[in-house]
C-alpha cells in the first residue's frame, strides 16, 4: 500500500547507514519503542509524522512503525535529506518528501498524508493541523489529536484555541521540559552555530555576532557563540528576556543599532520578518545572515532578493546578495532553519529526548484523546520526568531522591520551629 514519493530510491543504503548510526545514540527512544511494541497499544493505529526528513526523525518514524503503527511521513523540500527519505521508505514507511520539491508538490504530499486519515499527527509548526482545520475538514472526522514539535507551532495552536477554531486536543510536546530545555537550547545552539561555521569556513573568535531573539534557541546560540570566542549582542522585544541576556553578561541593543556593526546575524524569534528589511539594509558589507528559528522568513529573503543587483552561490549553502551600493550580504542555508538546511539537524542524543517525548505524546493521545478537550495540553509531568530519568540512567548519571522528611517539609504549610 506504500506509495512513497521520494527523489531516488537508490540512495537507500546511504540513508540506512545514517539511520543506523543515530540508532546507537538514542537509547531512551529505543526503550520507549520497545515498550510500545510489547504493550501493543500502537498496533494498526495511523500516525502521520510531519518533521524534517533527516536521520533522527526517520528513526522515530521507523520506531513507531516497528511498534505496529501505520506511519506516513511528509515534509517540505529544503529540509529533506533524499538519502534518508529513501532509507526510510526502504524500511517500509510511506514517505512523501523530496529535497527541492515545489510548493504544489508539497501540497499534494500533505493531501496524500491527510487521505490516509491519520489518528494522530506529530506535527511541526502546526502545518498539518492547520490544513486539517482549513482546507481538509474531512480529516478532522478521524483525527484524534496532534503533538506539536516547535515553539512557533504551539503559538499557532494557542491562537486557534483562543478563537475557537481548534477541534482536537493537542499536546505541546515542545513545552515538555525534556524537549525545550535541551533540544532548543543545546541542540539548536550547537548545530546552528556549527552549520554556519562549516558552511563558511570562517572564524568565530572575535566576531561580532548578533542574536535576534533570546528564547531557548537564542540562549543556546549565544552560549555556543561565546564559547567559540564571539562577541555577542542580543536583540529582544520582551523585557524579561532582555534583562536575562543582560545578566548573562551579553550586550543588549536595538536591532538597527546592533546590525550596523554585525558580522554575523542569527535569528531565532519564531516571528516572520523579525529582522526587517531596514535592519538588513543597515548591515555592513560582508555580513552573514542565518536563521535558526522554525519560521522560514524570520528575515525577508524575497525582499533582499528584490533589492539585490546580483545574486550568486559562492559556496554550497552560501548565497551572495550584491546590493546597489556594492555591499554584499551572505545568506547561509537559504534563510530557513540553518542547522537543517546546511547540516544534519540537531545532535542525535538531543533528539533522543525530543522524540521519546513525541513517541510517548502520540501514544498518550491515542489512548486518551477521547477524554481530552479540544485545547492545547501539556505532556503529563510524570511522562516528561520518566524520559529525564531514563536519559540519566543511559548516561550513567546517578542522582539523589528527597528523604521522607524533606518530602513532608515541602508539602507542609505549618510553621516549623
Amino acid at each position, binding site marked *: 500500500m506504500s506509495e512513497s514519493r521520494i527523489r531516488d530510491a537508490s540512495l537507500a543504503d546511504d540513508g540506512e547507514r545514517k539511520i543506523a548510526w543515530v540508532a546507537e545514540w538514542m537509547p531512551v527512544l529505543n526503550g520507549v519503542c520497545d515498550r510500545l511494541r510489547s504493550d501493543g497499544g500502537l498496533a494498526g493505529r495511523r500516525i502521520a509524522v510531519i518533521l524534517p526528513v533527516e536521520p533522527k526523525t526517520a528513526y522515530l518514524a521507523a520506531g513507531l512503525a516497528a511498534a505496529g503503527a501505520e506511519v506516513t511521513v511528509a515534509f517540505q523540500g529544503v529540509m529533506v535529506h533524499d538519502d534518508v527519505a529513501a532509507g526510510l521508505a526502504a524500511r517500509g514507511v510511506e514517505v512523501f518528501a523530496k529535497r527541492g520539491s515545489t510548493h504544489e508538490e508539497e501540497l499534494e504530499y500533505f493531501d496524500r498524508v491527510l487521505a490516509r486519515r491519520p489518528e494522530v499527527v506529530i506535527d511541526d509548526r502546526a502545518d498539518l493541523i492547520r490544513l486539517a482545520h482549513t482546507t481538509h475538514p474531512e480529516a478532522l472526522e478521524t483525527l484524534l489529536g496532534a503533538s506539536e514539535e516547535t515553539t512557533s507551532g504551539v503559538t499557532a495552536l494557542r491562537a486557534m484555541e483562543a478563537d475557537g477554531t481548534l477541534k482536537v486536543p493537542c499536546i505541546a510536546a515542545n513545552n515538555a521540559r525534556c524537549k525545550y530545555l535541551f533540544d532548543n537550547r*543545546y541542540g539548536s545552539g550547537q548545530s546552528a552555530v556549527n552549520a554556519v561555521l562549516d558552511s563558511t569556513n570562517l572564524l568565530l573568535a572575535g566576531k561580532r555576532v548578533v542574536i535576534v531573539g533570546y528564547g531557548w534557541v537564542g540562549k543556546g546560540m549565544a552560549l555556543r557563540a561565546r564559547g567559540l570566542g564571539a562577541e555577542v549582542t542580543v536583540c529582544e522585544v520582551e523585557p524579561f528576556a532582555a534583562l536575562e541576556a543582560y545578566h548573562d553578561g551579553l550586550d543588549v541593543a536595538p536591532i538597527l543599532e546592533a546590525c550596523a556593526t554585525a558580522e554575523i546575524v542569527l535569528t531565532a524569534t519564531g516571528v516572520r520578518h523579525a529582522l526587517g528589511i531596514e535592519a538588513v539594509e543597515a548591515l555592513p558589507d560582508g555580513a552573514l545572515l542565518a536563521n535558526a528559528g522554525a519560521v522560514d522568513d524570520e528575515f525577508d529573503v524575497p525582499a533582499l532578493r528584490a533589492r539585490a543587483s546580483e545574486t550568486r552561490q559562492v559556496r554550497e549553502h552560501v548565497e551572495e546578495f550584491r546590493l546597489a551600493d556594492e555591499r554584499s550580504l551572505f545568506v547561509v542555508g537559504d534563510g530557513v532553519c540553518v542547522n537543517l538546511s546546511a547540516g544534519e539537524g540537531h545532535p542525535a542524543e538531543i533528539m533522543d529526548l525530543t522524540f521519546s517525548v513525541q513517541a510517548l505524546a502520540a501514544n498518550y493521545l491515542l489512548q486518551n484523546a477521547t477524554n481530552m478537550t479540544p485545547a492545547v495540553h501539556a505532556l503529563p509531568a510524570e511522562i516528561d520526568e520518566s524520559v529525564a530519568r531514563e536519559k540519566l540512567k543511559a548516561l550513567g548519571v546517578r542522582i539523589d531522591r528527597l528523604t521522607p522528611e524533606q518530602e513532608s517539609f515541602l508539602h507542609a504549610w505549618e510553621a516549623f520551629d
Partner: protein
Amino acid sequence: MAVADAAARSRIADIGLAEEGERRIAWVARHSPVLKRLARNRLSDGALRGKRVAVVVHLEAKTAYLATLLAEAGAEVVAAGSNALSTQDSVCAALVRRGIEVHARHGASPEEFTADLLDVAETGPQIVIDDGAELTRRIVEHRPELATRLEGVTEETTTGVARLRALQDAGLLTFPAIAANNARCKHMFDNPYGTGQTALTAIMRLTNLSAAGKRFCIVGYGWVGQGLARRAVGYGGRVTVVELDPVQALRAHMDGYRVAPLAEALDDADFVITATGTTAAVTAQVFPRLKDRVILANAGHHDREIDVTALAARSEPIEVRPGVTRYEIDGKRVYVLVDGALVNIAGGDGNPVEIMDLSFSVQALAAHHLASSDLPPGLNTFPDDLDREIARTKLSTLGIELDEESEAQRQFGAEWRT
C-alpha cells in the same frame, strides 16, 4: 605559465572541476585582507620575480590563494599537497587553470604522494614553503644534490620545525630555513583558534553528535591542545588533559582542567582528540581502556597519532558514515574519524580563512625575506618587525586602533637604576 603548459606538466585529478575551485578561492580572497593588502604590496618589489617557489601545504583554497599571490609577484610556483587526504581536487584544477603547475590528487597512495613531491623536487625549487617539512626532508634524503640549490625553506608547522631542528642537529640543514610556525602571528592564532575551532566543528559535523556534558580527552597541551580544550568547553564539554611535559601539565591544571595519565583519562572519555605532534599517542596498549562507542580524532600533523594500523589488525574496519570508521575491540565499538588524519582538514575545509590570512601572510613575507636577504644556513626566526606589521595590518582591517608607548614608559623600560 601558459595554461596549456601548466596542464601538461601537472598531475591532478580533473581539470573540469576548476569552476568549483575558483568559487572557493574567490571566497578566500574576500576574507584575506592582510594577504591582499600587506603581502601583495611587499611582494611587488620584484624580489620573487623568476624565482622557483614550491608550495607544499594542504592544497585547499587558502593555500591556492597564497600560491596565486606568489605567482602574481613573478615567482614560478609549483604546488603539491602536504597530505593526500587534505588535497581538494577542485582547487588543484583551478590552480592549473590559473597557470600554476600542480602535483596532487586527493586520496593518493603513499607511493603516489611521494612521487608527486619528488616531481616537485625535480623542478629545482629555490624557495620552499613547506608543511611538516614534507618536501625539505625528501629533498635532503632523496635528492641531496638539489639541496645545494635551495636558497631557503620556510616551515608552517610545529612538527616541521622539529624536523628541521633534527636535520640541523644532524648537520644536514645546509641552507637557510625560517621557522614560520614560530612567528607570533602564526602559532598564537592558527594553532589554538584555527585548529581549536575547526577540529571541534568537524568532529560535530562528521558525527552529528552532541558535545554538551560529554567528556573530552585532549592528548597534548601545546598550542593546538590548548585551543581544543577551550573550544570543547565552549561546546559544553568537560575536559581531561593528557600531557608528558610537566610544565604544560601544570598549566593545564591551572587552566582548570583535569589532568591525568592517558589510560586513566580514557576510562570515561566520549571523545579523544590527539594533538601531540608526535607518533603513537594512542596505541594498542591503551585500547582496553577505551569506552564503548568512543570517538577518536586527530588534530595533530601526523596521521599516526592514533594507531589505526593496530586497530585494523584486530578488527574489520567498517565505514558507518562518511568519515566515520568503526572497529570492534574486545566487544567495544571504537569510532575513528577520517582514518586518523588531521580531522579539520581531511574532514572539513581546514582552518578558518581569516586565520590562514595571518599564517600565509607570515609565509609570503618569509618567502620574500628569503629571496631578498642573505640569511645564514640553519634555522632562522621570522623577523619581529614583519610579525608586528602583520598584526598591525590585521588590527587595522578590523578597525581596531592601538595606543603608542609613551616617552615616560619607554624611558622607564630603559632605566636600570633604582
